[in-house]
């Protein structure tokens, strides 16, 4: 009898003690009524596949133009090549967000866009005719290496000087070979990723419903967040100096030699927003993560979480748009606008990395838990 009394008292006190945390609004975390398959289908068919297809066709184009250029290096050829490079680099920003499955298997993100490029290593590779791109973390490949080869290798971005190098330099054949191999490698990796997605991965991806780590929803959210943080840190944060005691590092921007850093950052943020909204390359707004969080009525500070996220995307895009290219020069002149842009980008992280997975009840794990829990 006494036991029962004691437990009743403990029960009542505890419930009252914690009743102060009662939710009165209609938030319904972990609501599982949402049609995940519709989300995955839209993301796969209207976002991921078209983006990879786009990137693939641009790299195919780049490869053809590279052939033309190395056969007969001239000013027109280089201009075409540079144009194709910028197009492809811009497309990459949308395709960079899906580093799981086929992309993860070939380390696509690190292979294609580890920057800043290690120019010493590139030059060493050229000199010694090393064209091994199997190690993704060597900073001597992908778009950053191409950026250097097309815009910086002659010591300036001068078209004349660059063409001269590929036409008249004693090592010109070595330069041509590295350029060709580099592009071919990028093309192969993207083609593989696209083909695997199209032929097999897509069908399993759209059916892997559930909230567990490793399922499609968790993969989308994890990979989207990872990429967002890379945009924040590498594209804006590092060069602005906020991560290094306010010493700006303008030469660490993405696409330093071609000077299209800001525009790439805008592409990346737009891609991030579009994935969130479920907007495909045709511009049609399909099922996205926004629909999912509206389904659970997530609210934050008196607004819906969706409004908070969309507003913050708008602010971040605005702030980055205010940074004129070349970003490295903008930072050298005055790093403050870049720091402000960094802050706007950063304010979004808590919304998409903490709030969104929390209200959707998704396991967010970049790595598997190395230990037991209890």
């Amino acid at each position: 009898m006494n036991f029962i009394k004691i437990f009743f008292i403990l029960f009542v006190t505890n419930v009252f003690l914690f009743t102060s945390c009662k939710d009165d609004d209609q938030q319904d975390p972990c609501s599982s009524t949402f049609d995940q398959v519709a989300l995955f289908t839209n993301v796969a068919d209207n976002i991921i596949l078209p983006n990879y297809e786009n990137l693939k066709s641009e790299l195919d184009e780049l490869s053809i133009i590279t052939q033309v250029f190395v056969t007969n290096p001239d000013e027109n050829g280089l201009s075409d090549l540079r144009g194709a490079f910028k197009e492809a680099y811009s497309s990459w920003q949308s395709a960079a967000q899906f580093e799981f499955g086929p992309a993860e298997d070939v380390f696509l993100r690190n292979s294609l866009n580890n920057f800043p490029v290690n120019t010493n290593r590139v030059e060493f590779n050229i000199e010694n005719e090393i064209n091994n791109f199997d190690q993704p973390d060597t900073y001597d490949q992908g778009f950053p290496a191409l950026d250097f080869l097309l815009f910086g290798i002659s010591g300036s971005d001068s078209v004349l000087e660059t063409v001269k190098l590929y036409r008249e330099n004693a090592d010109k054949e070595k330069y041509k070979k590295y350029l060709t191999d580099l592009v071919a490698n990028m093309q192969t990796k993207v083609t593989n990723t696209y083909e695997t997605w199209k032929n097999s991965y897509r069908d399993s991806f759209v059916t892997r419903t559930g909230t567990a780590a490793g399922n499609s929803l968790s993969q989308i959210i994890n990979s989207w967040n990872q990429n967002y943080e890379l945009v924040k840190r590498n594209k804006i944060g590092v060069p602005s100096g906020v991560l290094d005691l306010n010493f700006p590092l303008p030469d660490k921007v993405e696409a330093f030699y071609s000077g299209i850093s800001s525009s790439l950052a805008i592409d990346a943020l737009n891609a991030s927003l579009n994935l969130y909204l479920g907007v495909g390359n045709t511009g049609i707004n399909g099922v996205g993560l926004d629909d999912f969080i509206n389904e659970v009525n997530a609210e934050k500070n008196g607004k819906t979480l969706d409004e908070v996220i969309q507003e913050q995307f708008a602010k971040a895009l605005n702030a980055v748009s205010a940074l004129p290219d070349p970003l490295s020069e903008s930072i050298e002149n005055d790093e403050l606008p870049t720091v402000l842009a960094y802050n706007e980008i950063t304010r979004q992280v808590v919304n998409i990395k903490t709030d969104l997975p929390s209200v959707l009840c998704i396991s967010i794990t970049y790595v598997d838990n190395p230990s037991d829990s209890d």
Partner: protein
Amino acid sequence: MYRGFLAKIRWRFIDSPVGIIPLVRFRILFGGLMMLGAVRFIEQGWIEKLYIEPDYFFKFYWFEWVKPFDEKGMYILLSIIIGSSFMVMLGLLYRIAIIMFFVSFTYLELIDATNYLNHHYLVCLLSFLMIFLPANKSHSVDVLLWRNLKSNLVPSWTINILIFQLTVVYTFAGIAKLNYDWIFNAMPLAVWLPERQDIPIIGYFFQFKWVAFLMSWVGAIYDLSIAYFLMYSRTRPFAYFLVIVFHLMTWLLFNIGLFPWIMIVSTMIFFPGKKIKKTLSDISKTNTHSFAETRDYYYFIKRNLLLSLIIGYMLLQIIIPFRHFLYPSNVFWSEEGYRFSWRVMLVEKIGQATFTLKDPKTNRQTEIINSRYLTQFQEKQMSIQPDFILQFAHYLRYEYKRTHGIENPIITVDSHVALNGRVSQPFIDKKINIAEIKDDFLPKKWILKFNK
């Protein structure tokens, strides 16, 4: 009359002789399980992942002096754990073996507070208690070596103290479940169960919220009552069946390693030895309610000192889990008084903490990339535990002095934590220079209040 009652209680729970078998069985199973657990620990690569890879280790208060060893040293430590648990199982040089086990296992657990687990704390406590128990007086190598050590009886406290410990675990785990989120929101099971829909047959049900509610309530009732059902002989077999079902279920559902097995094995202590009835009746016939008799079975220390030690231990075990009432904050939010209290699988927290360090001389400031100093697992744990946030800030101060020569930097943290499926809330006061704060047991006023 009153004294007589107390004397009876004392006789019944402390001094009366009981069969040694439960204790011996406990020793063998516990030793064996700990040995397997340590082998699994190595085999999973956790020495490297948890103790070699990290550059920094979070400390337990008062145990800041505990340092990790190098790789070789860590393997030696684990070897000691394996060897000593094997000796415990065999009952070979038992007293030395169990002391070695307790010390080495506890040391391992103290190295990095990131890896704190309630069931590891339980292992520390059980092995500490076992140091004082005559678990080698039967079915042991020691008895083969020293024949006069053998005894079929032990004083009942040696078994009851283990029963008490397990009862504490269950009861407090149950009390901790009596909170609003668990009872009325089925949280965090409503987060965790749908993740396991891939489990055959039962997985299908995890999509329904009522299942999370059912399991939350059943779990709470189970934890609150199971130890008492295990105490009474009539309900004991069925209760033990429930123990097996319940823990196998948790083993299936959650990544909780050894915990289910520890509980399944340990709760066998509630089953008395076979000969117990006969011996007890024999004794009551001869009416030897005297200490002189039990002293022959096992003498540890003076009777009254033993009694006070036991009562002191019991009080501590009851007070520690309730210490959070001394803090004004919500224990699930602030984690003040959270550890060592059997709050098992109770919260789902996601957090992030962004540190900014400012040199007061130059006014230059820098945002910290946590992953430069912490493993992903450490970072995840740090972002939701205030004392870790504090420790990390102190480490940053030390590091920036070492690498940049910055004296007395101002370190602030912008942190947000989302609890049990809610949106996040600011966690730490971001205006405060946490590098200057010293950790202590006083309420941490720099933790912001949990709203709603």
